[in-house]
């Protein structure tokens, strides 16, 4: 039986972790993710979980300790945001290359500078090629559900990769909203026990973790790791469907909203998708054939499937909550455009940079995007990379 509750996104993730009861949590506080280890350390102190909480002195150490713990055979989690993730940079790549199925609760926050504590996706998007599986949430509910699913994905046979469970800083992390929680027993049964085939603390098996790989091996090692990320794709879907059978909330790689007959669409990630759904409803009521695609899994990237979902649109707005500083496209802009090209679907595309540093996204902003798309479909556009909601 589901439990009705109202929680902030951070409370929801901490609650999921309480139910999962991982073995080790090394963490260092940083806004806006601080509450996750804060709430969780209370569960530790109260004896509600058996987790070893390690208060480290930096995020560099947090991820290092997580790698050590996971190598030792412990189910491990950490949490961070923004500069904290930047300080984990080196270890992010080690966690994935060492094929360690640990989980990071990432509460998205802008990278400095100028220094800012509010939401955008520059932190996780910067780490998009670090070999991690990346899953994003629109709501507190999705942040909770994604955390419950994370270890099933990370620990799956053929995957064994770390998972970043992302949600929007403050917008969902600090907003209290309705949520349906699973029973503790349901979560524990769904997540299951962690019994790695190899671990450093296994008395029956000797192993070395992270050996040096000379040029003759490095490329093969990377190719093998890429295969694991490829394998994650099917697993994310299968786990999302199994979760749906259990809870009634099914998850795939992305969500299509009003896409069946859509001629104009936007593609985006995170909390702004909820706001955009209201804009879609409003325009649909006016008879406009609009829809949206909300990407849930950004790594691995379901490019071919997104292109297929967009095959009938005349114009698409590709919405990036980060500035990539490359003078041509943000991550979603580049990857969806590339997928459209591979599918030989030559619709108009406009890539928007929006919502940086917590800049609010209103229903009216999304309506403006659709207005632009109507115009672009009719008249084309040379201005394919632009800002939304910036003072000109």
């Amino acid at each position: 039986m589901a439990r009705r509750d109202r929680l902030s996104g951070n409370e929801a993730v901490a609650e999921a972790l309480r139910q999962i009861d991982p073995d080790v949590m090394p963490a260092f506080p940083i806004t806006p993710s601080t509450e996750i280890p804060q709430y969780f350390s209370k569960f530790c102190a109260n004896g509600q979980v058996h987790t070893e909480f390690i208060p480290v002195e930096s995020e560099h150490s947090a991820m290092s300790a997580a790698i050590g713990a996971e190598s030792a055979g412990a189910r491990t989690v950490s949490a961070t945001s923004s500069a904290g993730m930047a300080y984990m940079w080196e270890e992010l790549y080690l966690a994935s290359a060492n094929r360690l199925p640990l989980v990071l609760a990432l509460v998205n926050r802008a990278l400095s500078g100028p220094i800012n504590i509010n939401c955008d996706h520059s932190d996780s998007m910067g780490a998009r090629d670090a070999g991690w599986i990346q899953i994003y949430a629109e709501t507190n509910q999705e942040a909770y559900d994604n955390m419950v699913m994370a270890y099933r994905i990370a620990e799956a046979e053929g995957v064994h990769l770390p998972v970043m469970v992302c949600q929007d800083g403050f917008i969902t992390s600090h907003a209290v909203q309705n949520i349906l929680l699973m029973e503790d027993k349901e979560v524990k049964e769904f997540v299951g026990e962690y019994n790695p085939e190899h671990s450093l603390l296994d008395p029956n098996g000797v192993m070395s973790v992270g050996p040096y790989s000379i040029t003759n091996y490095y490329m093969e090692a990377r190719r093998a790791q890429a295969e694991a990320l490829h394998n994650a794709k099917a697993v994310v879907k299968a786990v999302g469907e199994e979760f749906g059978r259990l809870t009634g909330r099914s998850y795939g790689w992305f969500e299509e909203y009003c896409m069946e007959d859509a001629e104009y669409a936007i593609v985006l990630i995170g909390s702004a998708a909820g706001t955009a759904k209201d804009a879609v409803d409003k325009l649909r009521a006016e008879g406009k054939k609009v829809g949206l695609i909300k990407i849930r899994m950004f790594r691995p990237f379901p490019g071919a499937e997104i292109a297929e979902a967009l095959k009938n649109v005349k114009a698409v707005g590709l919405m990036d909550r980060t500035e990539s500083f490359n003078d041509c496209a943000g991550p979603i802009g580049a990857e969806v455009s590339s997928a459209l090209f591979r599918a030989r679907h030559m619709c108009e595309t406009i890539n928007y940079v929006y919502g940086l540093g917590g800049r609010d996204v209103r229903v009216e902003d999304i309506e403006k995007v659709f207005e632009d798309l109507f115009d672009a479909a009719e008249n084309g556009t040379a201005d394919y990379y632009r800002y939304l909601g910036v003072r000109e």
Partner: protein
Amino acid sequence: MTDLNKVGPSCTWKDLTEGMMIYEGGTSRQFKTGEWASIKPEYIESKCIHCLLCTPVCPDSAIPVKDMKRCAFDYDHCKGCGICVKACRFGAIVMEGVNK
């Protein structure tokens, strides 16, 4: 358990262990790094009093000991660094280019 014998300089990416992990102990024995050495130390057994000062300083564990007696060099793993020559007080180890 991954068969480490399959892992070698010509294996494909599919034959590698997950995350390049090594699921055995002491696998460095299989790598004959002794071939890196162009000059090797020489053991003069008649001068050796088996004080065992040389054994612990060898970075490659290439000076075996048996029954408290040092044995012949393990040239499969001796890289010819010459540290043992410096450690020996009795002229029992000599090597070209290394002065006492």
